[in-house]
């Protein structure tokens, strides 16, 4: 094995590592429980209760039951935040705690908060519109109307943790937004513009998006089966993943546990079609990420696919992978088989999953898998996790409108 750090960057002040995770998902809360869920191939699918599903024939989703935001949100009134902000703020506090930091430590440093989302507070918007239809505009709840803006997902983190020397941005690049947010944080920390970054994604399930995906014919009746010949679509999900990024120098100085290193990322937008992914541009995005990270395709040990379980995504993405990686691509899994599609949180949760896979030496399985579609020529590690020594992992995020974002993570090597 090479002794060079992956990506070839040696300066500890310019290497960016992940030292804290905040996780809310339908298969586990917190990094430890999430890792256990991934390893055991847990499914988050269950009947949807967070909104009215009357009129829909199939009503499964990967929602989070028993979420207690007030356990994590101490300075703000949790009840005054939308559900997506509750997820993002709770996950941010958890990430800081998981990193062994006190918010007071961060207050003295320059920071960045970047949170990706697809729907922002659309769950609230659903309720607001329902009330407007039922009772008229005059009866719309002012406090709900006041918290709809997606900017709240990141600004509320700064408020809750008392972080004043920060840029707080919400990145609304739909289903690739988590990776976009990580890429932004990576640049800020690597360049020295920020000392740390809290990056990730958050979304709460909502009726609007469920209905939209349903109408597109992309909602699976019961379960999500990425790359399977009989796959029937995705299940919507919810949650948040927040990652704490800091320089290697800073992590070493304070003796922090290092989950993984961020090696680089790639972004592109082809704007080719509202919903259909474009193979050549997905491939190009992976190349951009590899180039940015200074990694050769043959060095990648695992790909965490966007892997929604729709007909269109899985074929296009597999082909794009083979066009970059050749006829023997690395094993390619979809954690959406377990978590559902958590929208803006998806690639953030998947990046955490990749890091935990590196840390704990296993590949999370693609569950619900019976028979691989011959048009998806990849090994998706069906149903059972496998032990694996992972050095470099690629995390794909592909979004509507041809917004693609790919992040490369590596095992920390001195």
């Amino acid at each position, binding site marked *: 094995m090479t002794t060079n750090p992956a990506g070839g960057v040696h300066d500890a002040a310019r290497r960016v590592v992940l030292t804290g995770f905040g996780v809310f998902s339908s298969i586990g809360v917190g990094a430890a429980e999430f890792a256990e869920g991934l390893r055991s191939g847990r499914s988050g699918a269950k009947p949807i209760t967070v909104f009215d599903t009357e009129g829909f024939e199939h009503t499964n989703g990967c929602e989070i039951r028993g979420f207690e935001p007030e356990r994590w949100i101490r300075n703000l009134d949790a009840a005054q935040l939308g559900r997506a902000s509750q997820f993002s703020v709770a996950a941010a506090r958890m990430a800081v705690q998981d990193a062994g930091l006190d918010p007071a430590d961060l207050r003295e440093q320059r920071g960045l908060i970047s949170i990706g989302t697809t729907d922002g507070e659309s769950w609230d918007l659903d309720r607001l519109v329902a009330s407007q239809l039922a009772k008229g505009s005059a009866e719309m709840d002012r406090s709900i109307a006041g918290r709809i803006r997606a900017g709240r997902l990141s600004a509320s983190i700064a408020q809750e943790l008392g972080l004043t020397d920060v840029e707080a941005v919400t990145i609304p690049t739909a289903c690739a937004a988590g990776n976009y947010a990580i890429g932004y944080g990576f640049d800020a920390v690597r360049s020295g513009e920020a000392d740390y970054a809290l990056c990730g994604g958050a979304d709460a399930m909502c009726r609007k998006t469920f209905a939209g995906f349903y*109408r*597109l*014919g992309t909602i699976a009746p019961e379960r999500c089966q990425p790359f399977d010949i009989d796959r029937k679509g995705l299940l919507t999900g919810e949650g948040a993943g927040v990652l704490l990024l800091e320089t290697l120098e800073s992590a070493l100085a304070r003796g922090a546990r290092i989950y993984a290193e961020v090696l680089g990322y790639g972004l592109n937008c082809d704007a080719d*079609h*509202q*919903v*259909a992914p474009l193979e050549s541009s997905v491939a190009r995005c992976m190349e951009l990420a590899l180039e940015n990270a200074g990694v050769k395709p043959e060095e990648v040990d695992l790909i965490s696919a966007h892997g929604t379980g729709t007909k269109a995504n899985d074929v296009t993405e597999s082909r794009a992978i083979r066009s970059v990686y050749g006829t023997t691509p690395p094993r390619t899994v979809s954690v959406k088989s377990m978590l559902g599609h958590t929208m803006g949180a998806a690639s953030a949760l998947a990046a955490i999953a990749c890091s935990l896979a590196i840390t704990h030496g296993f590949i999370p399985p693609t569950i619900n898998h019976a028979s691989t579609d011959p048009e998806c020529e990849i090994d998706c590690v069906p149903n059972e996790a496998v032990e694996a020594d992972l050095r470099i992992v690629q995390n794909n995020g592909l979004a509507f409108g041809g917004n693609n974002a790919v992040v490369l993570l590596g095992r920390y090597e001195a």
Partner: protein
Amino acid sequence: MANVTAEQAATIKEIVCEILELEEDEVTGESLFREDHGADSLRAIEILASLEKEFKVTIDQAELSRMVNLNGVYEVLAESAGW
């Protein structure tokens, strides 16, 4: 010709032209939404959804493959509605 009345056919054509942003004289029973009029899969779903709403029927999404022109739409709708 599918079992639709002149009135139903006119309403269907109006809906299709509205969604595809076409003048009614540009569309014939045979002209293809995708190839001749530049429609994509999302427009097709919009047509299906609007017809379901207007005529209070349910159209199986698998029928989209037949709804490539107005005559195809008339047929599928007549079958789905039991006309």
